[in-house]
């Protein structure tokens, strides 16, 4: 390491970067000239208002990207109010550039410009780093700032939580702090936007004329891979700098008790905190199932009704109606788009709800309360949110994994989410339980939910002992943020960006997969039918189901109707019941009756489907249809998640993990179903 203090004042030499020279490595513009853009990184400890600041300065000019080679998501946007509209990157929160998790590593690499692909997460070295300094925890924030300066990055400090610090009796004057550390310090309130314009001006000035803190040497490239003694000495110097910089601050020895402290005395108390936590989680579950469901139905109805009618009319108008082109357009393409759009209200509701929990400060408390239970299966307390949401719908549950700060924890939780039994699977349980266990239907359905929990717990324990042995069993150390009133605009803005990410990325996979299924169902393999005018049994899809049925025989499910319904269940678990009705050529009316009359199988039009199913499973199970029905329910619980879930898994965790997860689930489901049937047939 080399100390590069400037003469006299101990400042960094300004030739560490050429001031005012913009990056020119982003490739030529269309006009053939070099495109001049600049990049600003937002860095800070967790829960200091960094992401709120990002939303405030970027407005709607933002997108979510994965850091190259990682599953760590970064939000990138344009600082529209600054001349030249520099790109701004919201880095994962961290306390140190000595990373302990993949997320922290992305932040560290982005600041230092090291780490290969991950280092390029923010496109290589940045022009400026805005370090968000928490006034309630100045020393801790300044250590991160000191490390950033030591990495040779010019800085601006954005001071947040000044009012909160004052509540504790801590007075932080921006001007005094600026004089002490030697870089611009701007007090801001990211939630109200106060001070953000001044921060923009400071950033614009500092991009052109970089400023570096006084008294911190720049780490040289040769210093990489220092031994422990050198690392410790460097930490000593940086902490000494922090002590000097904060020496003028008024910090009382005893902190005052704030409103948040008083609320926490209740919410973190086990007797009150756990019931409140359960009530909040119940409300979230209700939001996913009851509030979003009618909106999803509305969107589906619009697509399958007026939109489909419009497309059919338009095609008829140009002479393309009634044939395979109409079927492809309506039953393939439009159905795929409709499936994606139907999820939009659900995802939007979920993102806003998560945002409210996060920005209000309650999410950190929920994680604290649930930590002990989650730790029993090797997970962080924060994993409780996605796992509970999963019982409503797996797709937003995967999105909720973003509340976990560690990429490996997010991946582990994301792999367990499909085992939480979503409400779509409930329709299958109800149908089968009411047909095969009419007197114990409630008990059987409850047992399926119990089994779902066992799959999550067992899967968590198994994965922690195999593929996730690297996850250290660290205690949950959370800085509990003050309670705040959530602001609507940033919440809606953030939800809009994330829903957009779902529609464009996961949506593409869903549409393509549904088109493939349309092709399978449209192509006849026997019977001399025309393309797209073929009964399921005579289609390529039916032939595939017949082949798959042989694999299901050890579970007492060796029938093409069952295989066909399970294949359809890959698209959406809601269509399993409908697929049964379709493959048995039961009328649409009786199909609806089967669902509606699930509680009473012998009644109404549902009876025909009940009789058909009973007959099929009697035949495939050698008279042990109850055992086969149980095996079928277990298979539905455990096998591949629906297409939307798979697409979201692929979007968040990458193709390799998504495919691996689906393959493993198929195998596990098959083994579980075979075990259930083979043991069940003994009775």
């Amino acid at each position, binding site marked *: 390491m080399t100390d590069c203090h400037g003469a006299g004042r101990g400042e960094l030499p300004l030739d560490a970067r050429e001031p005012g020279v913009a990056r020119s490595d982003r490739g030529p513009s269309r006009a053939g000239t070099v495109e001049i853009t600049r990049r600003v990184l937002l860095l800070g400890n967790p829960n200091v208002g960094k992401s709120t600041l990002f939303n405030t300065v970027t407005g709607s000019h933002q997108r979510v990207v994965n850091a190259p080679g990682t599953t760590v998501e970064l939000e990138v946007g344009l600082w529209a109010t600054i001349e030249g509209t520099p790109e701004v990157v919201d880095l994962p929160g961290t*306390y*140190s550039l*000595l990373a*302990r998790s993949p997320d922290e590593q992305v932040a560290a690499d982005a600041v230092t410009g090291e780490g290969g692909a991950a280092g390029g997460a923010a496109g290589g070295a940045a022009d400026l780093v805005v370090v968000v300094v928490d006034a*309630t*925890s*100045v*020393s*801790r924030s300044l*250590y991160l700032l000191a490390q950033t300066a030591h990495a040779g990055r010019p800085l601006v400090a954005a001071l947040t939580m000044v009012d909160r610090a004052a509540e504790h009796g801590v007075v932080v004057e921006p001007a005094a702090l600026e004089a002490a550390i030697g870089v611009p310090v701007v007090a801001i309130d990211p939630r109200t936007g106060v001070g953000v314009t001044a921060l923009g001006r400071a950033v614009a000035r500092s991009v052109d004329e970089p400023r570096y803190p006084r008294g911190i040497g720049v780490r040289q490239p040769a210093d990489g891979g220092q031994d*422990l003694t050198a*690392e*410790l000495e460097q*930490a*000593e110097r940086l*902490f*000494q700098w*922090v*002590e000097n910089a*904060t020496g003028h*601050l008024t*910090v009382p*020895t005893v*902190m005052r008790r704030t409103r948040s402290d008083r609320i926490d005395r209740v919410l973190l108390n086990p007797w009150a905190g756990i019931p409140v936590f359960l009530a909040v989680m119940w409300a979230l579950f209700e939001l996913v199932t009851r509030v979003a469901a009618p909106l999803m139905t509305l969107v589906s109805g619009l697509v399958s009704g007026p939109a489909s009618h419009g497309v059919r009319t338009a095609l008829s108008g140009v002479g393309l109606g009634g044939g395979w082109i109409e079927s492809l357009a309506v039953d393939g393409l439009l159905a795929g788009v409709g499936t994606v759009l139907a999820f939009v209200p659900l995802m939007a509701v979920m993102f806003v709800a998560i945002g409210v929990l996060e920005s209000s400060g309650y999410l950190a408390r929920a994680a604290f309360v649930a930590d002990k239970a989650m730790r029993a299966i090797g997970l962080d307390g924060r994993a409780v949110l996605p796992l509970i949401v999963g019982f409503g719908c797996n797709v937003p549950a995967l999105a909720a994994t973003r509340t976990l700060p560690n990429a490996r924890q997010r991946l582990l939780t994301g792999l367990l989410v499909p085992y939480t039994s979503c409400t779509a699977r409930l329709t299958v349980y109800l149908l089968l339980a009411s047909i095969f266990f009419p007197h114990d239907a409630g008990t059987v359905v409850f047992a399926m939910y119990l089994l779902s929990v066992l799959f999550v717990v067992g899967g968590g324990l198994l994965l922690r002992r195999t593929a996730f042995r690297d996850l*250290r*069993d*660290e*205690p949950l150390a959370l800085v509990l943020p003050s309670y705040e009133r959530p602001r609507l605009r940033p919440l809606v803005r953030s939800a809009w960006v994330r829903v957009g990410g779902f529609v464009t990325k996961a949506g593409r996979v869903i549409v393509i997969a549904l088109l493939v299924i349309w092709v399978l169902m449209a192509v006849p393999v026997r019977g001399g039918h025309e393309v797209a005018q073929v009964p399921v049994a005579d289609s390529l899809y039916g032939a595939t189901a017949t082949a798959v049925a042989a694999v299901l025989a050890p579970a007492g499910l060796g029938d093409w109707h069952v295989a066909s319904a399970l294949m359809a269940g890959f698209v959406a678990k809601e269509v399993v019941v409908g697929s049964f009705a379709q493959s048995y050529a039961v009328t649409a009316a009786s199909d609806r009756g089967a669902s509606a009359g699930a509680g009473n199988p012998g009644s109404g039009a549902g009876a025909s489907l009940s009789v058909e199913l009973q007959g099929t499973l009697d035949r495939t199970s050698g008279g042990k249809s109850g055992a086969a029905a149980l095996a079928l329910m277990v298979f539905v619980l455990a096998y591949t998640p629906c297409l939307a879930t798979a697409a979201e898994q692929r979007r968040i965790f990458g193709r390799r993990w998504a495919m691996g997860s689906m393959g493993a689930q198929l195998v596990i489901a098959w083994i579980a179903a075979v075990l259930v049937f083979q043991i069940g047939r003994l009775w």
Partner: protein
Amino acid sequence: MSALRSVLAEARVGGTAENIAARLGLARDLVDSMIDQGERLGLLGSAAAACGSCVGAVATRVVRPGCTGCPFARAL
């Protein structure tokens, strides 16, 4: 001795962040930050992590902070 070394030394003999801050006259968040950095450098283990197993049964020369004061954790 630097503040960081003092904090690490106090932590090694079982001091909590709050006690260390009071004893050394340092800001609590500065002590938190030093302990965190000490853990990241591998100079300290988490006290809570020691609760899962008894260090006395493990052949190691590193005594976790949570175990200081425990007779089984000595003389290794």
